[in-house]
């Protein structure tokens, strides 16, 4: 937190009309987190953290969020490139459509996934009949649900980075004999690497916290589809202290990620 200290040094006076709501905003966002810390059973923290279910859920969460991020990178970076660099009819519509998961309630996303990738769905039925692959209520289903919800974060970050990057570097690469693919891998990607990294971290954090689409599409089977947020929800019904501990783990991971990304988060698109 060096920025406020620097600002104080300039001796600028902050208008009260801005300061009061800003302070209220911080309180509103931070107080619930403080409440979580207050209710944390610190004495029994260690045994609860090492309880078998917790580690399983945490491992599954991290694995699924990582796989979902990789999937988003594989599909989202080329899509962002297309949106940023190629003029094609209906580009505005594509751009609007791929960001729909941002505003869609995740549960609705889960239902939609179920309708398409479910065993009776057009794609799910075909997968089942052809390869014997079932997606809903599997770990793969968790990855798909998380990727569905998190990909827009990656696309927006990478597209913004691509638009900000000087495309004349790509022209320079072309005059040196590089085709479009080589230019993309050797010049464009390294130039927008910070944007891709920021997008991937945001995407990962969003996937880690995903709840609605996951529980709808993949269900809640411990060890297979029960990620941390699902475990929190389940624990809340039986053991509030367990829920608090699980939440604390999730909170710690999120804060670490976002703190590492603070500047990007503020200046990003």
């Amino acid at each position, binding site marked *: 937190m060096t920025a406020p200290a620097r600002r104080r040094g300039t001796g600028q006076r902050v208008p009260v009309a801005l300061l009061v709501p800003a302070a209220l905003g911080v309180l509103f966002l931070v107080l619930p987190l403080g409440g979580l810390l207050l209710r944390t059973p610190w004495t029994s923290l260690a045994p609860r953290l090492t309880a078998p279910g917790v580690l399983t859920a945490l491992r599954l969460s991290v694995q699924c969020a990582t796989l979902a991020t990789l999937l988003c990178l594989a599909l989202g970076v080329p899509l962002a490139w297309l949106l940023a660099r190629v003029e094609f009819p209906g580009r505005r519509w594509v751009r609007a459509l791929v960001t729909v998961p941002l505003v869609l309630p995740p549960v609705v996303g889960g239902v939609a996934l179920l309708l398409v990738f479910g065993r009776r769905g057009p794609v799910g039925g075909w997968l089942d009949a052809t390869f014997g692959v079932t997606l809903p209520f599997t770990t793969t289903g968790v990855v798909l649900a998380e990727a569905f919800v998190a990909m827009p974060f990656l696309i927006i970050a990478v597209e913004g980075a691509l638009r900000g990057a000087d495309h*004349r570097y790509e*022209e*320079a690469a*072309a*005059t*040196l*004999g590089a085709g479009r693919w080589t230019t993309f891998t050797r010049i464009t990607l390294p130039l927008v690497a910070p944007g891709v990294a920021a997008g991937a971290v945001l995407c990962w954090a969003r996937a880690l916290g995903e709840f609605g689409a996951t529980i709808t599409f993949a269900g809640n089977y411990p060890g297979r589809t029960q990620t941390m947020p699902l475990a929190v929800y389940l624990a809340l019904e039986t053991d509030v202290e367990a829920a608090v501990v699980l939440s604390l783990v999730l909170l710690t991971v999120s804060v670490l990620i976002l703190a590492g990304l603070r500047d990007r988060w503020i200046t990003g698109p």
Partner: protein
Amino acid sequence: MTGPLLDGHLVVDRAGFRLDVRLRVAAGEVVALLGPNGAGKTTALRTLAGLHPLTAGWLRLDGVELDRPATRSFVRPERRPVGVVFQDYLLFPHLTARDNVAFGPRRQGLPRRAARERATDWLGRVGLTAHAGRRPRQLSGGQAQRVALARALAVQPTLLLLDEPLAALDARTRLDTRAHLHRHLTDHAGAAVLVTHDPLDALALADRLVIVEDGRVVQEGDAGTVTTRPRTDYVARLVGLNLHRGRAEGRLVHLADGCAVPTTDRLDGDAFVVFPPTAVTLHPERPAGDAPHTWPATVAGVHRHGDHLRVQLTGPVSTVADVTPVVAAGLRLLPGQQIWATVAADATRAYPVDH
């Protein structure tokens, strides 16, 4: 091989602008496209590199058709034997100087080692061996320019293109870099096209000047011809001459309103006449004697120009005159003042409008 190495008729139509430039460059020749900003020079350069397609005309390099809209033939930039030095160099910021230079040779299929060796060799030729491991942001403007030149030459291009190669440099670096660039352009066996709005760069670096205004070639020729026989106001201003158009009769060129300029060149018909500002003599009264060689003028402005005073004159013949401070003091020059001007015949040069 006979004929020019580069032969093109570059036509680009854009909303409200048309580029129409005929360009021929021989092997080993350096041609400067010189013109004011917005004249279409950079667009012409981009069509040569393949970064902008022609809308009509053609472009042939070393016997290979690179662009001809009529037959829908177009060679993509990465397949053209062309090297470009961009105005702000566009060195890849994430690569070292050596990797920047090695990028082109690598794309030409050279193995990594050989490409790096060639890059090291080229960095040596531009005197930057010690800077091979640096990133572009760690290089000074002049060094970055030389890395950009090495990068463009490392692909051994048939055609070397330079877009305002010295514009981004400060005056002192510019002088050194210009001399350095001149040496490499002389060594370059292929054709070279240089785009600049600076007449000094063009005169120092190019074998031939092509003056482009509003997308058209208004004059071309070697430095001597262009500087002594300008054909447009833009060129005349660049080389510091007064240019007028009139009708020549023997040793007189008749301008507007019965004014005339004497000359030692004998010719008849439509003619241009040029004279340096120092050749104009100002008189407070109409001098006695030959009437048509003198014309009335109004002082529009006076400002310092080197160790002279430059006097802007309006009237039937708008022109500029350079006078010494002593003369100026004697004339008591003030804006709005009526005076008389004459030009010495031996300082003027007249030549026909039609080539």
